[in-house]
Structures are given as structure tokens and as C-alpha cells.
């Protein structure tokens, strides 16, 4: 660039312009242009209100950079972009609940949330429930202890619904818990045992997981 801007080769109207002054002028001019373009573009960008492609999501307490389509749903992003396949896709129509995740601690059907709308929010999936050291969440431990599910495809959704519900109502009756997870379906029709597990989960959440929990069923989380 400096070679091209050499005053000897440019048709400057002023013959007194030195090479140094000319370059300084170009830099200053560029600064003015870029400052002005900022002023012009900023409201323009605000006016477009466009969904973005490269976004940053807070998932399970971590910032994850991800490239998304504007029409992409959160369930899709979680499963196929971030590898969090614990979130299941069942009906993909907000009917079955197997894609339930927490957004700012509230249960949502992630198949029916656009990824672009959760920028700046905290997403929690089933993978984000356990503690750093691998200790299961009380509701997860209760599911293990009660052997609450049959095929368990719907389990992550049920657990997320129950965890979200317990944040609002930590002391539910069985009937209230049934209402709380009523947005989730189980094709095995295993509802009674699921509710047993969820109620035990409510108790574990309240009073802590008793020492030796899980041993009765002969089950412990594999390291």
C-alpha cells in the first residue's frame, strides 16, 4: 500500500505533500471513515434484528460457541452440534416431553425453542445435573434406586421436568408431582413407578440422598 500511495505516483493536487504527511492523512482519513461507518452501521445493524449464525450458549454452566441455522431448534443444537444426546427427540412437536430441558430453571420443550432465542440464558440438560465429582442429582439417584423406568427413552425429559418442578414446589404431594410431570409421556405406560421415583427424588432433594442409597437395589453409578 505505501508504494501505491507514494506522492510521486499519485495525482495529488498539492505538490507540497510529503510521503509522510500523505500516509498520516490516509490513516486519519481511514479513522474518520471507520468511525463514521460505525455511526452509520450501528443503527442499521440494530434495525435488522437478525438472528445470528455464530452464537455463544451457556449450557450446563459452560460457554459453548456454536454455529447454528436461524431455523434450528435447541434440541437439534444440543444433540447434533454440542453432542449432548441425553436430550431425546421423540415427537419433535411439543407433545411428548422427551426433549425437556431447563432454561433459566424452567422446563421447556427444547424441540420447540429456537436456539437463537436462548442466547444469554442458562440451559441445563440431563448431562448438567450431576455434580462435578460425578455424584448424581438426587432425582437421578432416586430413579436408580426405584428402577423407575422401563425402556427409559423418556427418562431424561421426566427427570428435567421433575427437577424444574421441584425448584418451584419443593414439597409436592404425589398428585402435584403428577401434574408437574404431566407434560411428559411414557410409551411403556410405566407411570406409577415413574411417580414413585419422582417422589423419592423429591424427598432426596429435600433431605439429601441417604448414605448407601442405591446399594439396596445393588446399583451404583459406574465410574
Amino acid at each position, binding site marked *: 500500500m505505501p508504494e501505491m500511495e507514494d506522492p510521486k505516483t499519485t495525482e495529488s493536487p498539492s505538490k507540497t505533500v510529503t510521503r509522510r504527511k500523505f500516509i498520516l492523512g490516509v490513516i486519519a482519513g481511514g479513522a474518520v471513515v471507520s468511525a463514521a461507518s460505525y455511526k452509520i452501521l450501528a443503527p442499521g445493524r440494530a434495525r435488522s*434484528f437478525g438472528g445470528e449464525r455464530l452464537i455463544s450458549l451457556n449450557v450446563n454452566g459452560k460457554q459453548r460457541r456454536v454455529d447454528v*441455522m436461524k431455523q434450528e431448534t435447541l434440541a437439534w443444537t444440543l444433540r447434533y452440534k454440542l453432542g449432548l444426546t441425553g436430550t431425546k427427540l421423540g415427537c419433535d412437536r*411439543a407433545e411428548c416431553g422427551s426433549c425437556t430441558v431447563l432454561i433459566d430453571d424452567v422446563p421447556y420443550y427444547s424441540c420447540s425453542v429456537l436456539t437463537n432465542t436462548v442466547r444469554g440464558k442458562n440451559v441445563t440438560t440431563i448431562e448438567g445435573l450431576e455434580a462435578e465429582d460425578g455424584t448424581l442429582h438426587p432425582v437421578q439417584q432416586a430413579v436408580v434406586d426405584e428402577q423407575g423406568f422401563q425402556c427409559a427413552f423418556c427418562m431424561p425429559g421426566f427427570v428435567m421436568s421433575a427437577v424444574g418442578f421441584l425448584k418451584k414446589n419443593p414439597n409436592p404431594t404425589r398428585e402435584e408431582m403428577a401434574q408437574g410431570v404431566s407434560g411428559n409421556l411414557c410409551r411403556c405406560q410405566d407411570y406409577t413407578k415413574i411417580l414413585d421415583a419422582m417422589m423419592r427424588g423429591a424427598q432426596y432433594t429435600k433431605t439429601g440422598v441417604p448414605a448407601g442409597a442405591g446399594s439396596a437395589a445393588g446399583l451404583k453409578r459406574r465410574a
Partner: protein
Amino acid sequence: MAVIRDVMPAFDLLQPESAADAQKLLEQHGEDAWVMAGGMDSFDWLKDRIKKPKVLVDLSGADDLKGIRATSDGVEIGAMTTLTKIAEHPLIQKNYGLLAQAVELVASPQIRNQGTLGGNVSQDARCWYYRDGWPCYRAGGNICYADTPVGRNREHAIFGADRCVAVHPSDSAPALIALDAKFVMRTPKGERVVDAEDYFVGPETDITRLNILGPGDLLTAIRIPATWAGAKFYFEKVRDRNVWDFPLMNVASAMKLSGNNIDQMRIAVNAVAPKPMRLKAVEDAVRGKTANADTGEMAGKLAVEGAVPLQFNAYKIPLMRNLVKRAIVGTQEAA
């Protein structure tokens, strides 16, 4: 129709951060724009590839469309307030319990966490022929698939059918009519406020939509006057499943009583006609009467006058008669 589970077809996503910006975008894009509130209605259309808008205007970032504010004359609810927020709000529970009951019975917990009041009253018809993309009257065609001798029409209309026999599916709409709510819209011509019952249109007015919103119009808020605050309310929803399901029928009423005498009443039913139906004849007939089973019986008979059942929905006539009766007696046992 096979359920498609692939990513939706591409659209441009616009995320305005205020009602003013949202309305401008809708005006700018006109017929190309699809306005999305909670998305619980929108996603079905988009995922099934039946509606293919070029531009999706997502209202979820417009914070001035959210919230419940007490006003000098009642309460104003932003159109983007979620149903859960409304059901749990102390002022709504205390004074406008009818609406709290109605929204509590909508769909499932997750849907109430995401679905909004504006979306609930503005959602499209749920007739499965229409939703599956059949070229029926409502979709711009020249046939109704539900109103044939073999059409599956158990959920369809017994009143107000005009070519299309789909019903309005909202649970909150009849409650808002009973509470004499006003719907506030932002349109290209400025603010427009209409009575709740005037927000909805039947097929005789425009067969392709269920409400008065045109391109460029945005429902911003719903105002409930204090007139009926703390009145005696009755809401009941009848459906096949206890969760998720749309109403086979619902009834919402507000009554002012002196002792056991009805001074004034507003009552509306939904899922019987293409728009929520206010029962003015019943309101007039019960004025000054005692709120008992006899009055309920009389009101129920009056309510179903002129009903025209289809092949599979004649049950809706006794159902409606009984729901109106229950609303007047005020208990579920009375039927």
C-alpha cells in the same frame, strides 16, 4: 401425514426488542412475515411445511410486551406474558381467578411455560384436515373435509358454521370475554382497542383467519377492567385427556349476586363455533333470577337453541346445556 423430523426449511429470523420495532417489521414485511409469540402454534405449521414464511418475527425478545401491571381500572397483561406467569400471579388469582383457572388448564406445564396469552387467543384452528395441509375452504380451497358424511368431525362446530366447521380452540378466550376484557393492538394506523368478543372473526367474515389481526398488526396487551373483579366465577373445560388436550368444550362465566339472585352475568363458551361464543340471550334471561338448578336448566336449553350438529358431534348439545347449567349453579355436581 408422515411426521417430518428434519430441520425446518430456512427462513429469515428477526428478533425485535420492543413492540414498536416488532410492529414496524411486520408492517415492512407484510404478507411475508410470520409473527411468533411462544411458538406452540407456529412450529407445527413450519415443521409440517404447510406454512413457509420468508420472515419469522420472533417476539420473545420484546420485553415491553411482557408483564402484568395493575392499572387504575383493573389490570393490563402484556400479550407476551406466559400462561404460567398469569396462572401464578397474585393479583390475577385474587381478582380475576376465572382467567387463572382457564390458563392453568391449557395444555401441559412446558407449554404453559412457553405459551403466551397473546398467542393463546391468536392461535389458528386445530381441525386436523386443515392442520395437515388439506386444501379446504380455510386453506383457500373449495371443500370442507370435516363436513361430509364420513368426515371426522367429533370436535367440530355446532354453531356458526359457514362452509368451514372448525372451532376456536382457545381456553383463555371465553374467560377474557366473560371478564369483558379489551384487546389492545398496534397497527399501521396507530393503536386500536376492541372488546374481547370483537377480536375474533367467523368464516362469514373471513374464512382464512380466526381474528382481526391483518398484516402489520400486532396484539400488544389485554386489559381487564375491574368491573368483574372478585365476582363469582365458573370455569370448566371438557377434554379427552386431562393434559395437553384442546377443549371439546369449555365454559367461562362471571356472576354478580345479591344473596342468591343474579344481578348480572357474563358467560361465554368455546370450541362450539368458529369463534368464542358469548351467550347474550342467557345473560339477559337469567338477570334477576335465582342462581339455582331451575334457572340453570332454563339457561342451558336457551343456550343450545339453534345448534346444528354434524355427523359425530351431537353430544356437544347436551354437553353445552349441562355446562351452562353448571356455570349458573356454580358446581360440577349439579348436572
